[in-house]
């Protein structure tokens, strides 16, 4: 009775991966340099910051929430880490911890406003987006922080693997994705995140403390944004107060492209990695083809609509 079709994941989850494969196949046909280990290692490095932000964003979107402040909070973390290290002279681990604390604190603020004051996440994070941005600009005086010590940028270093240079930061991103995937799939807390997003009232009635789940998700996301800021500092070697401005929407794009539903309760975390990769692959591939960047923007927009449509259609067909 169970055909092989039933065993496949729904189109919403398989679709993004197929799209990524199709894009890779296309670009490989256009330029022989596309399908090399070196090129892919590069693409992974280019998407690792958005990739890690997208982990936090996925958790929040799974609860039917959204976080518009993610990029700005990340920028704040980067400025805190680099300024504490260069100006206050803190050793790197301590400076990093302070940066993580700053971003996690913002996550806590977001979470408390959503769970205690019961404001919609869209509104809350719209506000914290501006607050984080202003604090970052004021604290950094709108100047990029340079002469960052090597100890802060270790994750940008690479090691040899099968003839290509692989960045430690990319490895960290992959590890974080694995941890998030494991937690969401195999632990009760992970399943509760899905339940809260799918039917918050039902979840509450089964005795699960939904506000604790929500608070936890926002705090955890803040921590991921902090790790992303460390990766950003490691990649560029500076603390940039204007970083993260496009990452806000880029992270949400990655999550949507990856098949997670904006209505909550559905989606797989690995999809967000695929979504981030799709954007990176298109940017890299189109540049290799010599196509103007405006077309990247056009393609991304079309893909987002296709992704959401595919998810909606697959669900209707499944009934």
């Amino acid at each position, binding site marked *: 009775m169970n055909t092989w079709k039933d065993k496949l994941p729904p189109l919403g989850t398989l679709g993004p991966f197929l799209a990524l494969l199709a894009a890779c196949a296309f670009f490989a046909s256009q330029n022989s340099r596309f399908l090399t280990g070196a090129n892919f290692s590069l693409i992974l490095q280019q998407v690792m910051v958005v990739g890690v932000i997208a982990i936090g964003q996925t958790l929040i979107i799974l609860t039917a929430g959204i976080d518009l402040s993610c990029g700005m909070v990340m920028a704040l973390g980067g400025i805190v880490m680099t300024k504490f290290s260069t100006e206050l002279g803190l050793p790197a681990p301590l400076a990093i911890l302070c940066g993580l604390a700053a971003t996690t604190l913002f996550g806590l603020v977001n979470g408390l406003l959503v769970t205690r004051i019961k404001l919609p996440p869209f509104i809350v994070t719209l506000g914290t987006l501006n607050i984080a941005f202003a604090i970052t600009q004021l604290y950094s005086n709108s100047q990029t922080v340079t002469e960052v010590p090597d100890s802060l940028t270790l994750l940008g270093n690479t090691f040899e693997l099968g003839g290509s240079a692989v960045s430690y930061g990319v490895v960290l991103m992959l590890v974080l994705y694995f941890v998030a995937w494991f937690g969401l799939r*195999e*632990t009760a*807390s992970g399943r509760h995140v*899905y*339940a809260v997003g*799918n*039917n918050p009232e*039902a*979840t509450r009635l*089964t005795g699960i403390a939904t506000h604790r789940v929500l608070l936890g998700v926002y705090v955890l996301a803040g921590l991921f944004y902090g790790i992303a800021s460390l990766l950003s500092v490691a990649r560029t070697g500076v603390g940039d107060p204007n970083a993260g401005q496009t990452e806000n929407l880029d992270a949400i794009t990655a999550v949507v492209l990856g098949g997670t539903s904006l209505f909550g309760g559905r989606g797989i975390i690995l999809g967000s990695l695929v979504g981030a990769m799709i954007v990176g692959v298109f940017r890299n591939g189109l540049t290799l083809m010599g196509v103007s960047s405006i077309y990247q923007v056009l393609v991304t927009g079309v893909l987002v609509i296709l992704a959401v449509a595919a998810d909606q259609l697959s669900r209707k067909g499944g009934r």
Partner: protein
Amino acid sequence: MSQTHIVMQAKGLVKRYGQVVALDGVDFELRAGEILAVIGDNGAGKSSLIKALSGATIPDEGEILLDGKPIHFKSPIDARRAGIETVYQDLAVAPAMTIAENLFLGRELRRPGFLGTVLRMLDKKKMLAESVTRMNDLKVGIRSMTQAVETLSGGQRQCVAVSRAAAFAQHVVIMDEPTAALGVKESNMVLELIRRVRDRGLPVILISHNMPHVFEIADRVHIARLGKRAAVVDPKKISMSDAVAVMTGAKSVAELPAEALA
């Protein structure tokens, strides 16, 4: 009258919402091994009574006894912990999650040893096997426990919700309008299931507007009126129209034959 064990009892419950008196000193009694239906017109106080019994509201006056011992529920979770399970009108299931996951939502089983305590991994195999066992016990014919609940029909979903309550209840199962919005065939499926729950030793409190269903499966019927208990009747010894008349006040309890009372 033979002495039957009284599982749950309430005496003189009062509940006010501002100027409105929802419960006006109502009494209540649930006996072991029975299906007790609670009927009443809108505003008669039946939902307030059920809320008090399931821990959703705290009565202003009166007492509730479970197995003879007084209880004070501060929330539905307290009621659950005391072994009282409620099947809500909107079912309280997460549609995108599987039947097995929904059955164990909030009560998940963890793997033994290190995997369970440190890594906090779920024992999905065990939960799946348990779900199959429980559903088979109650003779619910759903093919796969790994289906998402949203793929089920309305009646099947109701069965899942009822089975979940029956699986974890120790003393009482409360059901709020279980056959509302169901067609004939599906309603029968659910009513059969409710009978099986009772037959396995769990008393059931059933709220319903559907008189035919009430008269089909209830052992006794508690008629609520104006915040009090108007009467408790035996559905086999009273006509449906008489019961409705008492419910609306068209007939007084005194007008009923003695054998109709239970």
